[in-house]
């Protein structure tokens, strides 16, 4: 059953894979923003994750260690951001941009000797006969472990934020850091931990690009994925499950435009390649206005530095 030459099951399976990096980065950034910090350095952290993950995987021969290495590398870079903004009170927007620039340069440097090398491959999760079910098998049961893990992480974040004490404290810090401080919560420490988590997630997303999706290392492999992740957080009104929807939407459009081309559709290529960004803008506008006022759901203390006045 094909529509215009495109098989929907194959398309959905493709978009699930394509969305993993931005989904991971977005859910990480959601946690960071819920704690009240705006980290624009997602792109830099993702690409650090991509190269650290790649180097670790190639050196150790294990893709699992590769992902761990990617998460750690990106978290290390996020630590710089954390120290600058939380301890040294630097401007969050500027520091985030500096992080991106530095991350892009440093990753390119680290990757000098690794261009064109094949990494150890990540296999698919063996679901056996389940994968042969006609439509659902392709969509649900034929992916590599990271696809399932990314969805599990979204579920975990949702559960923690909604039901646990830790999640409540995090949200409190993000809404009103002065009140949280007065209640005795260590605002700086919580924010630093959130930033590190965000970094690790972005790192996983980046490592997915270099280890599974491409799989190769090149300069600038992320090609703006970090910025898309930031947009997805706003699109999702800072709600975890909506991050999933947003990532699938964006991943879906990117995959669709290539498939349309391959199927011979007569839509001019340039307009197709612009479409993900235009649709993101459209969605942002809709979310910010009308009934779903995104600004209402943004953590109130987002972007403001916390300094304990004694």
């Amino acid at each position, binding site marked *: 059953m094909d529509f215009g*030459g*495109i*098989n929907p099951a*194959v*398309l959905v399976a*493709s978009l699930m894979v*394509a969305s993993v990096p931005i989904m991971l980065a977005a859910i990480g950034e959601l946690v960071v923003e819920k704690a009240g910090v705006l980290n624009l350095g997602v792109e830099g952290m993702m690409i650090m994750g991509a190269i650290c993950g790649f180097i670790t995987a190639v050196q150790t021969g294990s893709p699992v260690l590769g992902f761990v290495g990617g998460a750690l590398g990106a978290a290390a870079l996020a630590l710089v951001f954390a120290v600058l903004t939380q301890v040294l009170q630097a401007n969050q927007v500027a520091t985030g941009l500096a992080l991106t620039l530095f991350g892009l340069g440093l990753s390119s440097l680290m990757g*000098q*000797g690794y*261009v*064109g090398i*094949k990494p150890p491959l990540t296999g698919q999760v063996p679901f056996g006969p389940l994968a042969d079910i006609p439509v659902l098998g392709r969509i649900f049961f034929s992916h590599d472990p990271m696809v399932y893990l990314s969805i599990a992480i979204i579920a975990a974040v949702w559960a923690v934020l909604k039901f646990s004490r830790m999640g409540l404290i995090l949200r409190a810090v993000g809404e009103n850091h002065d009140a949280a401080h007065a209640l005795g919560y260590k605002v700086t420490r919580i924010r630093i931990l959130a930033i590190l988590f965000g970094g690790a997630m972005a790192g996983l997303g980046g490592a997915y*690009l270099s280890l599974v*999706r*491409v*799989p*190769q290392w*090149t*300069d600038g*492999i992320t*090609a703006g994925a970090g910025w898309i992740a930031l947009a997805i957080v706003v699109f999702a009104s800072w709600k975890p499950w909506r991050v999933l929807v947003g990532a699938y939407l964006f991943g879906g459009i*990117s*995959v669709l435009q*290539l*498939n349309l*081309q*391959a*199927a*011979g559709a*007569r839509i*001019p*290529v*340039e307009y197709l*390649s612009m479409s993900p960004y235009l649709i993101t803008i459209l969605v942002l506008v809709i979310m910010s206005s009308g009934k779903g006022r995104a600004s209402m759901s943004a953590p109130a203390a987002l972007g403001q530095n916390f300094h304990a006045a004694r």
Partner: protein
Amino acid sequence: MNRRTLMATAALGLGLVFGGSVNAAGMDKVKACFVYVGPVGDGGWTYQHDQGRLALIEAFGDKVDASTFQENVPEGADAERVLTQMALSGCNIIFTTSFGYMDATNAVAAKFPDVKFEHATGYKRDTDNVSTYGARFYEGRAVIGTIAGRMTKSNKIGYIASFPIPEVIRGINSTFLHAKKVNPDVTISVVWAYTWFDPAKEADAAKALIEQGVDVIVQHTDSTAPLAEAAKTAGVVGFGQASDMAAYKPSPRVSSIIDNWAPYYLKRVGALLDGSYTQVDSWEGISAGEVEIGEITDAVPAEVKAEAEAVRDAIGAGTYHPFTGPINKQDGSAWLADGVTAPDGDLLGMNFYVEGIVGDIPQ
């Protein structure tokens, strides 16, 4: 003394110091410099040019200093600056390895008449110290098109194209014509990636093509990503582009088109050394060794391999031209009559598909 004279004198002076004496019969020592548009480690376009540079060092030893090169040079003002710096620091011959350096090369060449400039894939030669060179990649496409036409079981070939320029359109046409010659039912799907090198995009393009049922992928982009993507699905084959991409042998990489710039570089620097250097517009192919076909692996049946090699040898011997009539344009109008070969002029400005290709060239 104005700046221009100062610079030219400085260049001449430095050229004499570094470049050895210029005697009537040639030069004792040549400093050859290279400007690359991408990283040497790209495993494709730039990598192959750098292999040419290394061949120079190996062939000429002490007589050539080919250690100076700059990678990742953006086109435009930055290119002009890099070229000027190279000329000022005593380079005798500078190879600029991307079409986008055309205006910068000509502008700097005008300021340094004693330095030779070689511009790859360009067509402008404003002053007589500028030469242009390219390779007839479409000859390589003819060979792999033959393999593609025979090996495809779904009768769908995919082409990952970069930009709608004549070189790419020649590639698409040549591939299709030769695939169709051996397999009249074959169709070709073109995806425009709008990049020469972007592994993520190329992987996505390959994936989209494979999902559409394509089982042979031909690429005009430079990374190994399409091959890596092809490796994930059984039965899909592809070809190495610009470099051999041997890591993907014996399948999915069943053969490759290799850009071999060494013969040309050796020829030009050698001409400088022995004094026979003149301005040229060089467009060579398989016969001069500039386009090579990489090893055809055992994944290809023996008779197909023999057929492809026969095409290659015929082109190399000059007895067969990939664009030989009767060929019509996509709209049905006649282009080449029976037995007529395409003149270079038609090929250089090619902006139409041949008959049988479905789809439009983006404008």
